[in-house]
């Protein structure tokens, strides 16, 4: 059966085909023959996740729907929902600012608002679908251990996706109207990052201030929280009750979410084209001036390359939001450091892996931007500079940036505990060098603007970078307690990096 061209169903078919092919290309890096490997990888991942879920939530499956249970479920749902809103906001901002097929759609004699309605709905659907692989093992475990009542949790995921899509589009449009198209992109990215991180960080801060630990459950199950939350019959718990399989609550939550999404679509879809045109015109109307220039500075090719990389990193909008998020995640450890320093406690061991992990993650992103994300590859390749010097300069730029970010933190730690500062410093060097090396071995040629899709180029590189950061964080954490015990995870970290080198592509163009 074919739908009428120009109808919402026809557009939905068109969008779903594009989304499916895009998703497939992302998973297989554009090589269809990799599909079976991806399928095996996803299968293994789901098995591992089921094992993890079984150990984490299995014992709660048959628990009664009392207040502590409702608080725990609601907090988990709220955390997941905020992450969904964050993801939906990012997708919505991208939809606004990408010109893509806009000219074709608006120049055609179809009712464009139908397509835009489909696009808004697709964002909502996409965040729900993306949440499923993570939620599925937990819900499956609860269904197996606690009975079919937990099946309602799947419905809650769908409702959360719809509500997240509605809020994301409303927030993005509100920013657009208040700040204008010029500033919205950056602010929306930052708001998305803050929304995603704020809840978990807020809970950690509360836990640290109240109990001196990083545990969020200590706060959620505390008498104070249980006392101030509404009674068990309140509609506040309907999402949690819906997840627990109460039919009435599930119907209400689903209905409310779809009403919200429907209202957002009805209000915004007819104006979407205008917003997108305003957003896509920003590049042509925005003029950013540099500071009053001084004279050309004496420089060598290597220094010129380093300087260029640092200037571009400073002016990178992705990096601004990403660094802000990194800084937000460093708030709880910093608070912990402050409390431990004040009370003379011995909790520095918790800080060490957090800092090392953050350094590895940041170095991986910076390394991709500087090594693979070269906007003028031909210019650099035709310069009279040995390609090895070019790479060396880029690596220096990455490690220099990491040093600038983490040296002050390590210096503060050194005042409180020189030993922990030394271990942290070594861990940061290990994690940053490993992440940079992985990005170097798996380098590709791409535009900086393609950063969001860097994982597409090599899943192996993505996993190698993540696992080496985790391994270095573990090494530093163990070494902070006992230096000799740190040898084993340290060797594992080195082994991971060596494996990445062995399977990296060897052939390089000149």
């Amino acid at each position, binding site marked *: 059966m074919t739908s009428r061209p120009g109808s919402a169903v026809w557009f939905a078919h068109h969008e779903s085909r594009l989304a499916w092919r895009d998703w497939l290309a992302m998973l297989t890096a554009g090589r269809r023959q990799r599909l079976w490997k991806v399928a095996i990888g996803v299968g293994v991942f789901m098995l591992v996740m089921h094992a993890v879920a079984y150990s984490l939530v299995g014992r709660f499956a048959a628990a009664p729907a009392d207040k502590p249970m409702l608080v725990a479920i609601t907090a988990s749902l709220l955390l997941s929902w905020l992450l969904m809103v964050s993801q939906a906001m990012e997708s919505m901002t991208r939809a606004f600012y990408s010109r893509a097929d806009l000219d074709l759609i608006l120049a055609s004699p179809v009712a464009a608002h139908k397509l835009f309605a489909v696009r808004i709905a697709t964002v909502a659907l996409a965040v729900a679908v993306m949440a499923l692989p993570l939620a599925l093992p937990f819900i499956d475990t609860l269904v197996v251990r606690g009975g079919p009542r937990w099946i309602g949790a799947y419905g809650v995921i769908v409702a959360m996706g719809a509500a997240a899509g509605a809020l994301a589009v409303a927030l993005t449009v509100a920013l657009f109207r208040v700040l204008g198209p010029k500033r919205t992109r950056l602010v929306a990215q930052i708001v998305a990052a803050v929304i995603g991180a704020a809840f978990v960080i807020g809970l950690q801060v509360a836990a640290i201030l109240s109990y001196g630990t990083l545990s969020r459950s200590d706060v959620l199950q505390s008498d104070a929280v249980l006392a101030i939350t509404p009674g068990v019959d309140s509609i506040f718990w309907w999402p949690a009750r819906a997840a627990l399989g109460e039919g009435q609550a599930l119907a209400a939550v689903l209905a409310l979410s779809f009403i919200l999404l429907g209202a957002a679509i009805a209000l915004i879809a007819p104006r979407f084209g205008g917003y997108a045109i305003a957003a896509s015109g920003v*590049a042509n109307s925005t003029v*950013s*001036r540099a500071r009053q*220039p001084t004279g050309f500075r004496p420089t*060598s090719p290597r220094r010129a390359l380093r300087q260029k990389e640092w200037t571009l990193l400073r002016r990178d909008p992705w990096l601004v939001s990403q660094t802000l998020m990194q800084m937000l995640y460093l708030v709880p450890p910093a608070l912990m450091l402050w409390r431990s320093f004040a009370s003379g406690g011995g909790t520095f061991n918790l800080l060490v892996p957090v800092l090392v992990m953050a350094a590895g993650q940041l170095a991986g992103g910076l390394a991709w931007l500087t090594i693979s994300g070269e*906007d003028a590859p031909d210019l*650099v390749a*035709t*310069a009279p*500079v040995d390609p090895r010097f070019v790479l060396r300069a880029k690596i220096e730029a990455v490690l220099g940036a990491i040093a600038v970010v983490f040296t002050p933190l390590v210096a503060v730690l050194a005042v409180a505990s020189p030993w922990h500062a030394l271990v942290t410093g070594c861990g940061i060097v290990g994690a940053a060098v490993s992440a940079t090396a992985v990005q170097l071995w798996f380098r590709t040629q791409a535009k900086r603007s393609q950063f969001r899709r860097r994982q597409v180029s090599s899943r192996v590189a993505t996993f190698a970078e993540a696992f080496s950061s985790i391994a270095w964080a573990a090494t530093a954490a163990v070494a902070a307690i006992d230096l000799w015990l740190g040898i084993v995870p340290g060797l594992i970290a080195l082994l991971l990096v060596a494996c990445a080198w062995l399977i990296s592509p060897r052939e390089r163009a000149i």
Partner: protein
Amino acid sequence: MPNPTPPAPLALAVRGLVKRFERPAVDGLDLAVRAGEFYALLGPNGAGKTTTLRMIAGLMRPDAGSICVAGIDALADPVAAKRVMAWISDEPMIYDKLTPREYLEFVAGLWGVEPALAEDRAHELLNWLGLVAQANERCESFSKGMRQKVALAGALVHEPRVIILDEPLTGLDAGSAREVKTVLRERTRAGGTIIMTTHILEVAERMADRIGVIAHGKLVAEGTLAELRLQAGEKTDASASLEDTFLALVAEQAQAA
């Protein structure tokens, strides 16, 4: 009897150049361009023009053959060859987040130009290309023409002896195209050598000293327009345009293939 003027030295000498992908893209190509010459390389899509230029610029290694730029063996000493060359493609190689001035400072740094000299040249080029007012604005807001002019300024800031251009006028408006052509003409007057591919035959006809026609990776004809007409034979007459001549030469090659 006065001695005849000795021929200008070769700025570019290519011998037996070969590059194969799934099929031969460049197939035993020979090319000789004299210093101070404006040489246009024409050919249908997929003829091997861009591949040839990318190999000369050091962006791609040939499977066989030799490339000599201003007397330097570009395959044996690519860094020395790159020092006297500049490369411009149809897609301007600039950074959105840098200003034209910062971009020129970066390029001058890469080529090791002395800062004071580079600054003077940058100012002169920006002035020449009508970019002084935008010198401190980031390139992200620039039109295609402005971006191409920034790239051209970058290519000239280190005073290259050989400039290689791959379709530099694609997508430019008439005003920008004229400015670029003026700058290129000035460079050849100053002794620079230009090797350019273009699909705009009128540009080749009006600007080039010599034109090479490439098809299936081979040079099928070369010379001035008059010489090309002769090589095209009976299919063209003495008043034939370059377009007629080019199409006749390419058709002849296609029949032969």
